[in-house]
């Protein structure tokens, strides 16, 4: 009983006092246990909070990855599609020019017209092929962008679930800490009351001895 100052009990105390002192000792141990539980719960809460913060940072990283990859892929897709549009316009124009040549009466002669028509048609075909390839590439890039988006969204959702679980665990640890704290506080109040009673018992004991001395 070194902790509560009841270390040396003078002789002449009744059995009730000794019993009360033992109970006080038990209460004291229980109080310490409550404090230990409270501290452990607080530590658990701190750890869950840290995990929550970490998961939030992981989610931020996933979102930033999405920003860079999905955004870049989408911009690339758009740029390629613009190039495709330009190529298609050029090809269409060449085709139209070739068609016009067919119906035009040209002073240069049939061979020259055919040659020019051939060149224009070749250019149109080439342009069309390029436009188609670029269009396909744009579609592929767009699809990749969507896939990356879906993937990072899934990762972010997973992080959300982890954050929710850590929040719940932290809340639960917080309640446990509060309960243990309240229990320790009440136990301490009871301990004080019991100590006051024992003090009175000791005082009575001293009074008895004094009366005996006087008698």
């Amino acid at each position: 009983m070194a902790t509560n100052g009841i270390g040396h009990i003078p002789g002449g105390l009744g059995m009730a006092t000794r019993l009360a002192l033992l109970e006080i000792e038990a209460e004291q141990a229980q109080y310490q246990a409550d404090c230990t539980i409270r501290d452990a719960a607080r530590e658990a809460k701190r750890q869950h909070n840290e995990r929550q913060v970490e998961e939030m940072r992981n989610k931020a990283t996933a979102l930033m990855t999405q920003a860079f990859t999905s955004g870049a892929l989408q911009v690339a897709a758009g740029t390629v599609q613009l190039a495709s549009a330009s190529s298609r316009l050029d090809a269409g124009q060449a085709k139209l020019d070739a068609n016009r040549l067919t119906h035009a009466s040209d002073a240069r002669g049939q061979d020259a017209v055919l040659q020019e028509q051939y060149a224009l048609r070749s250019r149109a075909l080439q342009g069309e092929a390029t436009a188609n390839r670029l269009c396909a590439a744009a579609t592929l890039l767009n699809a990749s962008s969507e896939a990356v988006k879906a993937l990072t969204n899934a990762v972010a959702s997973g992080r959300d679930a982890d954050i929710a679980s850590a929040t719940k665990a932290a809340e639960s640890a917080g309640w446990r800490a509060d309960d243990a704290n309240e229990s320790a506080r009440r136990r301490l109040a009871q301990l004080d009351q019991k100590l006051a009673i024992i003090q009175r018992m000791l005082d009575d004991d001293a009074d008895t001895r004094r009366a005996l001395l006087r008698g």
Partner: protein
Amino acid sequence: MSSITFSGFGSVAMELARLRQERRATELEVAEHDIFVQTQEQTHQREKQIEAEKRAADEAEKAEFWNDVASVAKYTAVAGSVAAAAFTGGSSLVVAGAIAGGAFTIGGDVLKRSEVVDDRTAMGLQIAGAVASFGAGAASFFTQAPELATQTAIVGSSVGEAVAGGGAVAGGAATFGEKSAESTEQTHRADAKLAEGRGEAARDHIQDAIARMDRQMNEDLVASRALNRIHSNDADARAALVNAVRG
């Protein structure tokens, strides 16, 4: 927790009690200092938390703005694609795929925003749209390109495709803006959570220090009562001893 001091030990008990009182005074000072320091810490963490939450709210607003921009860009891109497919007058499969892709993509987004369908259904619709668009693109690659006979068709198809491309570029930039704002928001929320946790820890320390002070003061009260009693008991004992010696 209070303490008990036994009667009848006179000056030794008094000395012990004095020493204990000194220790309690020191502990009180330590507890007071703890409260001061932890209160400062709590205030600081609270300020940090409020600041981080404010920044997170600002970033959320930015993300919302970029989300709107991305939606408009997406609608534009989809409309451009559909127009391009329609102007080519290509195979019905390509045109139908482009139109279905556009309808599913925009429909899913609009229905999700107006909360007609849940997130999962909206995602399903958007995936269907992406697949249809992809199919249309692939079909146009593998099938013979139609002969564009008129200037209007050529210009229409090219402009449609250019609009789709421009929309996609703008959408990509907006996606970057939106997601990076969301990421920054999340980082600020994490900072706020960290500050909140530290503030709570400081609050716990303050509560513990207050409880400690409370206990010390209670002990002081009980100890001074016991001291008074020891003092009077000691005097009584001495008087009784003197009387006994005198016979």
